[in-house]
């Protein structure tokens, strides 16, 4: 025969435990528990009440606030409620045993709950409380692991020199993944280097509505929490009452925000902000996680700045071509890795003819425009694997890599000379120049970069002496064996 009395209640508790413990998250566990509790007691309604509010219920029409009535039920079983559409109900509540003083509340049409039934409700509430506690612990562990994974991904991207904008995008994605929900907004604002009173949105993630709501540029003075972060270099964390009018306007539906400063070379460079709809249980832990992401923003910004500075030092600031130092470094490296017997490298030393007249006639600005144009035409005449450099003034150099021959070196030189012979539009008129090129080939010998450069330099002067717009190939005895090639 089917069991009865207390054995029935014990069995219902086992079944609730089975259903609830198989849940993967708090929401599913809570829904399963309140449904199972109502089912076990043949009750029409049940609810989970947290902090005096029915956060989840069953048995009330969608959109109705009638479940708030269950939030009024105190611990115990001798309560009667008159619920609209159901009638006079017995109600009972039991504590989950958590810090929020959450309660499982059941209401059933008809007779009061027996002692055994109330004991069952108490047991069910405790099972739900323990399950939720376990799920929260698991969730925290999962988030901690995700946090570590996200930081590792970001570090790897920085070390691999992934473009800065992509790294910053990964960071805001990481913040939302670890600290937020799908609808939450995460934004990174940086101080505009051209207008230090303005913040510019460098990266963001969130719903399209949130993205539209948050401005891409805003004055620091009007930026609420973000403005305070930048001005004070301190963390700002608050609930719905935003300290700045502008921030309150920006986040009317969000519960609160957490904003932390980001730095570049030790100076405040902006702020990282998360705006959330849900209350967060552990703001201290969240703040530490936010700071870890902010530190990675700082790392990425500083690294990008360092890279930029290095590039600047190694490149000609006017034309963007390699500097003399970088060129010689590359050349040395190339020569060091050449196998003996290869004829695999050619060096062109290019000197412009009549550049001084252009400067004198049209001014230095026109001269700069001309140099930029020359750099573009030289690069257009060589391959992507070759290296072009500006040595300063009107001197340029090109390293042709790979298995080059005398013939194709001459072809490249001829292309460059022909290209530079074409008029250049410059401010104030048109500039006509020529180029003289000295060529040095490495032919199966050990040679140092400076030595090779000297040879090309000698050949270039020979070219100038024999007439402008020409190239000369360096030979071992430059006095007797120079061969001249007309452009």
């Amino acid at each position, binding site marked *: 025969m*089917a069991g009865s009395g207390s054995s029935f209640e014990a069995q219902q508790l086992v079944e609730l435990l*089975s259903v609830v413990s198989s849940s993967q998250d708090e929401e599913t566990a809570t829904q399963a528990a309140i449904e199972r509790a*109502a089912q076990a*007691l043949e009750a*029409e309604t049940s609810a989970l009440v947290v902090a005096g509010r029915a956060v989840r219920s*069953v048995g009330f029409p969608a959109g109705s606030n*009638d479940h708030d009535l269950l939030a009024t039920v105190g611990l115990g079983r001798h309560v009667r409620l008159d619920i609209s559409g*159901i009638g006079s109900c017995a109600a009972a509540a039991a504590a989950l045993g958590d810090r929020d003083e959450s309660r499982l509340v059941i209401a059933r*049409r008809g007779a009061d709950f027996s002692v055994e039934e109330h004991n069952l409700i108490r047991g069910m509430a405790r099972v739900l409380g323990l399950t939720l506690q376990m799920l929260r612990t698991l969730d925290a562990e999962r988030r901690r692991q995700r946090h570590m994974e996200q930081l590792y991904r970001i570090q790897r991207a920085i070390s691999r020199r992934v473009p800065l904008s992509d790294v910053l995008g990964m960071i805001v994605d990481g913040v939302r993944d670890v600290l937020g929900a799908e609808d939450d907004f995460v934004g990174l604002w940086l101080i505009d280097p051209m207008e230090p009173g303005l913040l510019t949105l460098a990266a963001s993630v969130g719903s399209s509505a949130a993205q539209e709501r948050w401005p891409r540029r805003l004055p620091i003075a009007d930026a609420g929490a973000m403005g305070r972060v930048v001005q004070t270099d301190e963390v700002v964390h608050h609930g719905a009452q935003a300290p700045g009018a502008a921030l309150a306007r920006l986040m009317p539906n969000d519960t609160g925000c957490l904003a932390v400063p980001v730095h570049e070379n030790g100076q405040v460079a902006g702020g990282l902000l998360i705006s959330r709809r849900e209350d967060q249980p552990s703001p201290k832990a969240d703040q530490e996680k936010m700071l870890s992401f902010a530190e990675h923003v700082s790392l990425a910004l500083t690294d990008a700045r360092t890279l930029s500075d290095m590039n600047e030092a190694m490149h000609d600031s006017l034309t963007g071509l390699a500097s003399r130092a970088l060129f010689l470094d590359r050349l040395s490296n190339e020569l060091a890795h050449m196998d003996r017997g290869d004829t695999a490298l050619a060096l062109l030393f290019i000197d412009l003819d009549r550049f001084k007249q252009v400067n004198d006639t049209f001014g230095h600005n026109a001269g700069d425009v001309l140099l930029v144009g020359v750099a573009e035409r030289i690069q257009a005449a060589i391959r992507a694997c070759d290296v072009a450099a500006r040595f300063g003034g009107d001197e340029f150099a090109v390293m042709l890599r790979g298995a080059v021959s005398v013939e194709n070196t001459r072809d490249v030189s001829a292309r460059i000379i022909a290209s530079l012979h074409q008029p250049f539009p410059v401010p104030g008129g048109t500039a006509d120049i020529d180029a003289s090129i000295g060529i040095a080939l490495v032919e199966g010998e050990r040679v140092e970069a400076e030595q090779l450069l000297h040879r090309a330099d000698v050949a270039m002067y020979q070219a100038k002496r024999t007439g402008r717009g020409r190239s000369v190939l360096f030979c071992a005895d430059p006095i007797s064996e120079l061969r001249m090639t007309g452009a």
Partner: protein
Amino acid sequence: MSGEASAVLGEPGRRWMGVGRSDAEDSRTAAIEAVRQAMRGDDVKVLLVFASVTHDAKSLLEGISEAAPGVAVIGCSTHGEIGPGGPRDGTVVVTAIGGSGFSVETAASDGLNGRQREAGAEVAQCAAGVARPYRVLMMLTDGLARDQETVLRGAYGVVGATVPLFGGAAGDGWRMTGTFQLHGQDVLTNGVVAVCIGSDAPMGVGIGHGWRPTGEPMIVTLSGEGRVYQLDDQPALDVYLCRLGAPPEVYHDQMALSRYVLNRPLGVQRRSGVEVRNMSTEVDVDGRSIGGGGELVQGGLTWAMEGDEDSVLDAVETACRDAFAPLQGRPPIGMVTLSCAACRAVLGDEGIVHEGERLAQQADGVPFAGFYTYGEIARSRGIDGFHNQSLVVLALG
């Protein structure tokens, strides 16, 4: 004339229900005949259509549209139709509900598998459009879809405890190849259709079954997705048959097994009694698992159940008594009666005639109609409402 009909007026001009039936082979003709017989009053609000799966669903809707243009329709295929003249196969039974005392809204949701809760919630939205003192939500689901309880949970989440739930799962004459549901001009094959009936008078929902637990309970040690894999830590099918004392030939012969277990459902204990779970329709002889009815929670207890023709027929009185209770002593104007296809197998051809007679006796002259289902829906208290091997009755006051 192949049709039969009965109709009774409720309070004159206020509420009425009529039933028509046709055994015409042509689907369109059958629908027209049944609808015309059922429409015995003015201001028809909704037609409930229960048809043999052998009928062409589209042709049925064409016939209904011709006979009652513009009238709301829901319906489904069956495992036999209950109506005037007793239970039959191959017919169309139409129930017409009308009068100014009623108002209705209908809804449908297709693609039930995998979204049971959402589908239940979607159709239940129609209740919001019905403003009457008394309401009931009637749902007809694809009987081959699993996890029917969740459809009800979805509906319950929308209407709450204030609206009783009623209905059944469409059958297909044990072919197990496909059912259909009807809504307006649409034919669904894996859906749920619903009508919310609002009335100025009370309506009641009742349920009864004729099964009782036998022997010691078994622990469900491994289950999921509507199947039971282990009972008492052993293969479920073997433990189940052993507990029943089944003959050896049943253990590995699919046909013999199906026949044997059909009238031996399982039961789960509830506060006010034992709920029946039909685990015979999806028995896996090779995997030694059982399934087909409602959920059996892992960790729960279950009992083998027994019953006979007398106990099953006694359920008619139980279900009708519960359904009539809210009418406060006044006779109903009509009833919708849905009985389980598995019970039909237990009762046999003669037994279902007796069931029809018992229903007619309870109806006491008012029209009633229904069908044999693959699962019954009745919720008037608590949050559960899906049943197996039961009879459910909706009494319109």
